[in-house]
């Protein structure tokens, strides 16, 4: 999960990394009161969004009096920063910048270990900096401390390890006129899978898309919570603009099927996958939410030849939802694996008693080909 700048900076400061004096403004806050509370004349106002590029999209503005501050805050809350939700405005002291550097730690997937990246050319995308101006230091994850002649290197390392981060970036790392270093920005991605050792991870709702989660997304997320969170997942749902509801089995098949759906010219209403052996109830909840979106024109349920997912059991979960919703639009299913014969029988009975326009395929035909079958059924209507 990506953190907002203000959340990241709070974490940095706990680990001894200096941050500018600041105050967070929410939509409902009294701007005058907050400005007076901060008590600094020259300020910078920064849109709190989940991905960068806000500088180029009027997400960062400067102000030196209350009128300018009010205007800037209003402007930022109204702005559209690449479709992202602005959850707040961070009002900070304007820094006297002597130099802008870059510092980050992330995982290098090729070397399979963390890498610290440092450059004296900060303030811009690291991808735009010449290779010879970038210093990379690969770190052993088992090292408790690191000793490098780079400002805040060990502080950031402590922060990276103890926060269970995937990415930590300070850009720019600013040298202020009195020879001190300060983190002018904070980009942190935490590892959601480490939540069990971070009771303090209580963050406001968000999506990786940068927008607020929809009601359906919030509902689906709840399905996988609880102590058996790792036993079969049924909690992936991203709401999209199209009109074909999808229920895919498995991460790999879901990716291949999304590509296949676009290839035949259909547009998904959602991205959804369940995997492992989720219990019937979890699948029912998921399927109901998927089917609850208005304006659907079709439903595609597809997965590969399962290894150990009980097809009859997961189908039963879907059937419970179909019995309730009774969709009028075409439905195409492709799935195989353990207990597939029973699963198919149950599904055909469900189609019959609810008069569904449903076609079900097994492993005799590949997944992608059944997307074409769905197109044909939709066009026949």
């Amino acid at each position, binding site marked *: 999960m990506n953190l907002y700048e203000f959340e990241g900076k709070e974490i940095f400061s706990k680990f001894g990394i200096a941050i500018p004096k600041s105050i967070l403004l929410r939509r409902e806050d009294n701007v005058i009161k907050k400005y007076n509370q901060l008590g600094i004349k020259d300020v910078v106002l920064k849109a709190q969004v989940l991905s960068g590029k806000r500088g180029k999209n009027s997400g960062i503005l400067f102000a030196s009096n209350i009128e300018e501050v009010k205007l800037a805050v209003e402007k930022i809350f109204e702005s559209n920063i*690449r479709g992202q939700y602005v959850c707040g405005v961070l009002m900070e002291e304007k820094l006297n910048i002597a130099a802008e550097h870059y510092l980050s730690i992330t995982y290098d997937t090729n070397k399979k270990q963390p890498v610290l990246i440092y450059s004296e050319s900060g303030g811009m995308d690291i991808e735009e900096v010449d290779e010879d101006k970038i210093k990379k230091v690969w770190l052993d994850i088992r090292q408790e401390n690191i000793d490098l002649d780079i400002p805040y290197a060990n502080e950031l390392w402590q922060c990276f390890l103890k926060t269970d981060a995937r990415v930590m970036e300070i850009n720019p790392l600013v040298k202020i006129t009195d020879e001190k270093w300060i983190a002018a920005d904070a980009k942190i991605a935490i590892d959601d899978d480490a939540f069990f050792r971070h009771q303090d991870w209580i963050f406001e709702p968000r999506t*990786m*898309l940068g927008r607020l989660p929809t009601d359906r997304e919030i509902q689906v997320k709840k399905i996988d919570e609880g102590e058996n969170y790792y036993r079969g997942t049924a909690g992936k749902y991203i709401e999209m603009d199209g009109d074909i509801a999808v229920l895919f089995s498995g991460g790999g*098949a879901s990716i291949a099927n999304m590509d296949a759906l676009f290839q035949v010219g259909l547009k998904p209403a959602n991205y959804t996958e369940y995997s492992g052996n989720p219990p019937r109830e979890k699948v029912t909840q998921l399927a109901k939410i998927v089917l609850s979106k208005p304006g659907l024109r079709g439903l595609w349920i597809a997965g590969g030849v399962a290894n150990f997912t009980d097809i009859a059991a997961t189908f039963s979960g879907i059937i419970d939802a179909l019995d309730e919703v009774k969709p009028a639009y075409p439905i195409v299913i492709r799935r195989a694996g353990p207990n597939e014969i029973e699963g198919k029988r149950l599904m055909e009975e469900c189609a019959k008693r609810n008069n569904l326009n449903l076609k079900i395929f097994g492993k005799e035909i590949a997944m992608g080909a059944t997307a074409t079958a769905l197109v044909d059924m939709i066009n026949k209507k």
Partner: protein
Amino acid sequence: MSILIDKNTKVLVQGITGKEGQKAVAAMREYGTQVVAGVRPGKGGEVVEGIPVFDSVQEAMSAHPDISTTTIYVPPFAAKAAILEAIENNISIINTIVERIPIQDTAYCLASAKEKNIRLIGPSSLGYISPGEGRVGVVGGPLVLANQVFQPGSVGVISRSGGMTNELSWQIRKAGLGQSTAVHVGGDLLMGTTYADLLKLFEKDIQTKAVVIFGEHGGGYEFEVVEMIKNKEFTKPLAVYIGGKFANMFPEGMNIGHAGAIVEKGQSAEEKEVVLKSVGVLIADTYEDLVIKIKPFA
């Protein structure tokens, strides 16, 4: 011949008393794999599916010093300790099915394994199967199904996805071919055994004439393959499918599908295809296409 496993491989199951562990024991044994011991702290002396349970890996190893492979079936928060215990006891291959292990724990285990030249397969790996030889983990499913999908043959299979390992193997079988070994490498950001690691083994394996890979957008593991081919370390025909072209519509940093399938700059499905193609890799537009591309060489 096969890679990673043969009829003589002796397997340990860590977390043998859990539901998934028991399922794995049954799956391996019905396929003819020798599961010789299990571990579950506090339950030493018990017997699961006819297999003796020990309190620790060390005890299991003293009773069965010929164990060469272990499989990890514990909850994610216990995975690091279990894997490190296997590493301490010098088991040369560690297959980890556990999903949602914190990346820091995986990195720690990988660093420790590397020092001892121990191979980790996974995390999030259902295992691997060499038709007619045996299987580690549950890949392939119940015996009846596994026998419908798998038969000894010349195609090596590598997949980021467990479901697609089976699905792809089925497409190979349907085309009248068989598999040498099919490996589910797992979908995490850090892969214990990468495509390149397996291609090195497939290169040496006489049975394998060609290899197919089901890959995903995100991560840079395909670029290692490109280097290998350039250096002539892998010379057999290779077909690759990279899923997730649609993911371009999402912002950077988002992961869709598996944990490792992150939308990143310079590592999209299309960009990977271009460089793979430049060294002669056959690129499939759909996963079904993989088999069509590879058939003339298999």
